[in-house]
C-alpha cells in the first residue's frame, strides 16, 4: 500500500495543479450544498446516500486527475472519473433517455481513452518510465514525426472528453441527463480536466514541436465555438442549450490555449504567457457561470418539472432568486461588462490583438479572422441567452406548471447566490486574478513573467504594459453605477416622481372574440379568450428563426406538416413540426456506426455460442504461443 502511494499516486502540486484544484473546489462545493435541497423529496433516501457517495468519489477522482504525476496512475484515475460520471449520468436510470445518453457517453469516452493510452504508450516506449519528469526528458530526444503523432492522439483523446467538434456528440446528451448539480460539475469542471491534461501532456511533457500545433488547436477551437453556439441557438431544452454552450466555451478556452501554443513557437514568450492566462481565466470563469446556470436550470426543472423552454415563462415573478441569479449567469456567459466572462473574452481578444500587431503576415490575418469568429460567437451567445432568459423567465407563463411554480429551498438558493457573487468578484478583481494566472502560465510554459507587467496596479489591467490599452472592470462597474445614479437623480430632480399607469400590452386592437361572435361567427373553443394570451407570445422557435435561416447551409432545417381531418373539407387541426438536421450525427457518426455494425456482423460467425469453442480459442491461442515461443 505504501509502495502504491509513494510511487504510483504521488501527487504534484505545481501551480497548474493548484489552479485546477481551485476550479474543482469552487464548483464542487456549491454543487454539493445545492444537492441537499435538490435531491430531497426527489429521490429515496438510499438513492440520496448513493448520490452523495458518487458525488464525493467524482470530486476526489477529478482532484486526483489534476494532481498525479505518473502517467500510469493518471490513466487509472482518468478512467475512474469517466466511470463515476457515467454512473451519475444514468442516475435517473428509470428514464430510457438516461440509459441511452450514458451509453453514448461511455462509448465516446472510451474511444477517447484508447487514443490517450496509445499516445502515453508511445512516449513510454521512449522513456521506459511512466513518471512525468522522466517522460519529459525522453521527449526532448523524440523524433519530430513521433511528437506530431502523439500530439494528434492527445488532441483526439482529450478532445473527446472536452467536447470539441466533431467529438462533442456525447456532450449534449450526457450533461443534461444527469441530475442538475452533477451537470454543473460535469460541464463546469470535468471537461476542463481534459484541458488540463492537454496542457500537461502536449505542452509541458511533449513540448510544442511546430507552429501547426497552435494553428490546429485554434482552428478546432474556432469551429467548436461556432458549431456549439449555433446548435445552442436551435435548442429549446434549457439544459441541452447549456450543454451546447459548454462546447462553445471550451472552444473559447482553447482559443486562448491555442494562441499561446502558437506564440511559443513564434518566440513571443510573453504573449504566450498572456494568451495562456486568458485561456485559463476563461476556464475558471466558465466553470463558475456554467455551474451557476446549470444549478438555476435545475431549480427551474424541479419547480416546473419541465426542461422545454416553450412551456415556461413568467418565472421571474414566482422564482425571483433563481431568475436574478440566472440573469447574472447569462450576462456573464454573454461576456457583458463588468462580469467575469467579459474580462476573459476581452483578454482573449487582446491576445489576438498582440498577434495581429506583431506576428508574421500570415498569422496576422489568421488571428484577425479568429477574433472575428470570437466576436460572432459572443454575439450569437448573447442572442442565445436573451432567448434563454427571456423565454424562460419573462412575460406570461406558457403552461400550468410554470404558472404555479415555487421558489427553490434555501440550500439551492444559497449555492446559486454564492456562485453569482463569485461571477461578480471574478469580474471586478480581474487584475489580481490575472497576476496570479500569469504566474501559473509562466510556470507551464517556463517563461519568466516577473518582468511582464500585465497589470498597472490592483485596479487596472494593461496587456501591453503602459502602451495605451487598459481595462479596469471595477472602475467600469463603478462608472456604470455612478451614471445610473446620476441619471435617476437628475430625472427626479427635474421631472419629479415617476407617474405610472398599469395597462395591458398593446395587442393591435385585437378585441375579444365575443364581439366577433355577435356577428354570427360560431364560437371556436380556442377563440373565446381575452386578447393576448401566452399563445400569442413570441416563442423560442420564433426567436431563433433568423439564425436558422441565416445558417441553413449548416443546419439544414426541414419541416413536417400533417393535417388531421374530420372530413375532406374540414381540417380539424394542423400539426407542424420543425427540425434541424444534426449534421455530425447524420454524416459522420451514422456511416461510421453502420460500418462498425457490418464488420461486427461478419465477425459474428466466430461467436457460435458454444463454450467449448470459446475455451478452444483460448487453447489454440495458447498452443500457438507455445509453438511460437519454442520456434524462436
Amino acid at each position, binding site marked *: 500500500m505504501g509502495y502504491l502511494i509513494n510511487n504510483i499516486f504521488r501527487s504534484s502540486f505545481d501551480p497548474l495543479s493548484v489552479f485546477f484544484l481551485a476550479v474543482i473546489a469552487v464548483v464542487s462545493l456549491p454543487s454539493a450544498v445545492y444537492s441537499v435541497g435538490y435531491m430531497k423529496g426527489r429521490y429515496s433516501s438510499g438513492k440520496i446516500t448513493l448520490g452523495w457517495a458518487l458525488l464525493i468519489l467524482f470530486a476526489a477522482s477529478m482532484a486526483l486527475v489534476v494532481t498525479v504525476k505518473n502517467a500510469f496512475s493518471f490513466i487509472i484515475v482518468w478512467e475512474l472519473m469517466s466511470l463515476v460520471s457515467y454512473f451519475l449520468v444514468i442516475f435517473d436510470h428509470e428514464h430510457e433517455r438516461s440509459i441511452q445518453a450514458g451509453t453514448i457517453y461511455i462509448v465516446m469516452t472510451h474511444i477517447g481513452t484508447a487514443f490517450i493510452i496509445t499516445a502515453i504508450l508511445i512516449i513510454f516506449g521512449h522513456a521506459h518510465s511512466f513518471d512525468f519528469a522522466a517522460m519529459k526528458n525522453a521527449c526532448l530526444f523524440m523524433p519530430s514525426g513521433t511528437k506530431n503523432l502523439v500530439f494528434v492522439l492527445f488532441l483526439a483523446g482529450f478532445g473527446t472528453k472536452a467536447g470539441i467538434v466533431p467529438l462533442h456528440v456525447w456532450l449534449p446528451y450526457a450533461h443534461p441527463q444527469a441530475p442538475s448539480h452533477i451537470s454543473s460539475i460535469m460541464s463546469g469542471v470535468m471537461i476542463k480536466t481534459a484541458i488540463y491534461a492537454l496542457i500537461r501532456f502536449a505542452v509541458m511533457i511533449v513540448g510544442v514541436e511546430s507552429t501547426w500545433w497552435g494553428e490546429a488547436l485554434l482552428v478546432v477551437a474556432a469551429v467548436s465555438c461556432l458549431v456549439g453556439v449555433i446548435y445552442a441557438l436551435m435548442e429549446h431544452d434549457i439544459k441541452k442549450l447549456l450543454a451546447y454552450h459548454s462546447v462553445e466555451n471550451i472552444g473559447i478556452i482553447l482559443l486562448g490555449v491555442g494562441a499561446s501554443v502558437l506564440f511559443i513557437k513564434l518566440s513571443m514568450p510573453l504573449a504566450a504567457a498572456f494568451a495562456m492566462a486568458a485561456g485559463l481565466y476563461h476556464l475558471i470563469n466558465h466553470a463558475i457561470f456554467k455551474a451557476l446556470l446549470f444549478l438555476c436550470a435545475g431549480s427551474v426543472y424541479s419547480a416546473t418539472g419541465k426542461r422545454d423552454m416553450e412551456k415556461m415563462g413568467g418565472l*421571474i*415573478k414566482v422564482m425571483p432568486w433563481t431568475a436574478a441569479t440566472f440573469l447574472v449567469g447569462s*450576462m456573464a456567459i*454573454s*461576456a*457583458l*461588462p463588468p462580469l467575469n466572462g*467579459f474580462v476573459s*473574452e476581452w483578454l482573449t481578444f487582446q491576445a*489576438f*490583438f498582440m498577434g495581429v500587431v506583431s506576428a508574421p*503576415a500570415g498569422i*496576422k*490575418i489568421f488571428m*484577425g479572422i479568429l477574433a472575428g*469568429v*470570437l*466576436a*460572432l460567437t*459572443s*454575439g450569437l451567445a*448573447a*442572442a442565445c*441567452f*436573451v*432567448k434563454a432568459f427571456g423565454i424562460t423567465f*419573462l412575460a*406570461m407563463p406558457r403552461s400550468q406548471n410554470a404558472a404555479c411554480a415555487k421558489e427553490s429551498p434555501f440550500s439551492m438558493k444559497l449555492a446559486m447566490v454564492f456562485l453569482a457573487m463569485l461571477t461578480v468578484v471574478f469580474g471586478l478583481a480581474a487584475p489580481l486574478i490575472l497576476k496570479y494566472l500569469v504566474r501559473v502560465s509562466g510556470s507551464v510554459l517556463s517563461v519568466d513573467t516577473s518582468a511582464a507587467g500585465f497589470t*498597472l496596479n490592483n485596479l*487596472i489591467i494593461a496587456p501591453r504594459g503602459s502602451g495605451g*490599452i*487598459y*481595462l*479596469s472592470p471595477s472602475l*467600469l462597474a463603478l*462608472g*456604470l453605477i455612478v451614471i*445610473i445614479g446620476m*441619471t*435617476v437623480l437628475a*430625472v427626479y430632480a427635474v*421631472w419629479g416622481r415617476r*407617474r*405610472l*399607469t*398599469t*395597462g*395591458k*400590452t*398593446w*395587442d393591435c386592437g385585437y378585441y375579444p372574440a365575443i364581439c366577433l361572435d355577435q356577428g354570427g361567427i360560431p364560437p371556436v373553443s380556442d377563440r373565446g379568450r381575452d386578447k*393576448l394570451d401566452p399563445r400569442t*407570445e*413570441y416563442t423560442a422557435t420564433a*426567436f431563433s*428563426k*433568423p*439564425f436558422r*435561416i*441565416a445558417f441553413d447551409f449548416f443546419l439544414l432545417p426541414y419541416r413536417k406538416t400533417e393535417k388531421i381531418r374530420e372530413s375532406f373539407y374540414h381540417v380539424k387541426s394542423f400539426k407542424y413540426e420543425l427540425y434541424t438536421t444534426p449534421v455530425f450525427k447524420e454524416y459522420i457518426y451514422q456511416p461510421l456506426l453502420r460500418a462498425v455494425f457490418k464488420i461486427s456482423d461478419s465477425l459474428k460467425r466466430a461467436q457460435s455460442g458454444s463454450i467449448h469453442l470459446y475455451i478452444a480459442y483460448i487453447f489454440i491461442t495458447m498452443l500457438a504461443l507455445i509453438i511460437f515461443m519454442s520456434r524462436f
Partner: protein
Amino acid sequence: MEYLMLILSAPLVSGVIRKIKNDLRMRRGPGVFQPYYDLAKLFAKDEVVSENASWVFTITPFVVLASCVLALLFVPMPGAANPFVYIGDLLAIIFLLALGRFFLALAGLDTGSAFGGMGSSREMFISSLVEPVIFISIFAVCASPSFRFSSVVAGIALVLAVIAETSRIPVDNQETHLELTMIHEAMVLEYSGRSLALLELAAHIKQVVFFSILANCVFPVGILPVKILIIAAMIALVEVSVAKMRLFRAVDFLSFAIVLSVAALVISAVGL
C-alpha cells in the same frame, strides 16, 4: 467637458440627419432641434407599463443609457488627455454597447408582446453579425501604424456596420411604424413617457459613439464636430438613396461587410 458637449449634442446629430434627408427629399420637415423637443415632451409625460412586465423592464432604460454614456467616454480622442482610457479601451466599448442591447432585447420580450419578441430576435441577429465586422476592422486599423489604404477599406466596412448598428436604412428604418418591418422600434414599442425618453437619448448617444469611433480611429485628420457632421451627411445620403432591405437580404449586406473587413485585414497585413 468635451464629452458633456458630445452627450448634449447627440440629439442634434439625429436632428441634422433628419433635416438633410428632408431637404434631399424636397420636404420642409421639422428643424434640427426637434429631437430635443421630443425628449422634453416625453420626459414630462406619464408612463403606461404592461401588467406582464417585471423589474427587468423598469431598469432597462437606465442600464442602456449608462452603457451608452460610458461607451462614449471610452472613445479615444486625439490630443485631449483622457482619464477614462484607464477604465476601458475601444473593445470595451463594443462589450458595453452589448450590455445595453442585451437588456433592451430582454425588455422587448418582457411584456409578452409578439412585436417586442420579434424586435429582440432581429436586433440580436443583426448585432451578432455586426460584431465581427467591427472587431476585424478595428484590428485592421490598429495593426497599421498610420493612415493607409487598408484604413480606407476598414473604414468602409465600419460604415456599413454603423448603418446596421444605428438602425438606418437599408437594414432598419427609424421612421417606420409598421410593425413587421421594425427592428429597434419594435423592441421599445411598449415603452412610454420617461423610460422612452431615456431610451431615445441612449440611441442618440450610441449613434454619436459610433460616429466618433469612425471619425477618430479611421480618419484621424480634421476636427471632431466637422467630421461627425460629414459622416451624418453621408449616412443621410445613403438613407435617401437606397431602399430598405428584407431582413434576410441584410445577411448578404452584413456578410459583404465581413468580407470587406477581412479584406482590410489582409491588406494591412501585406503592408499597404
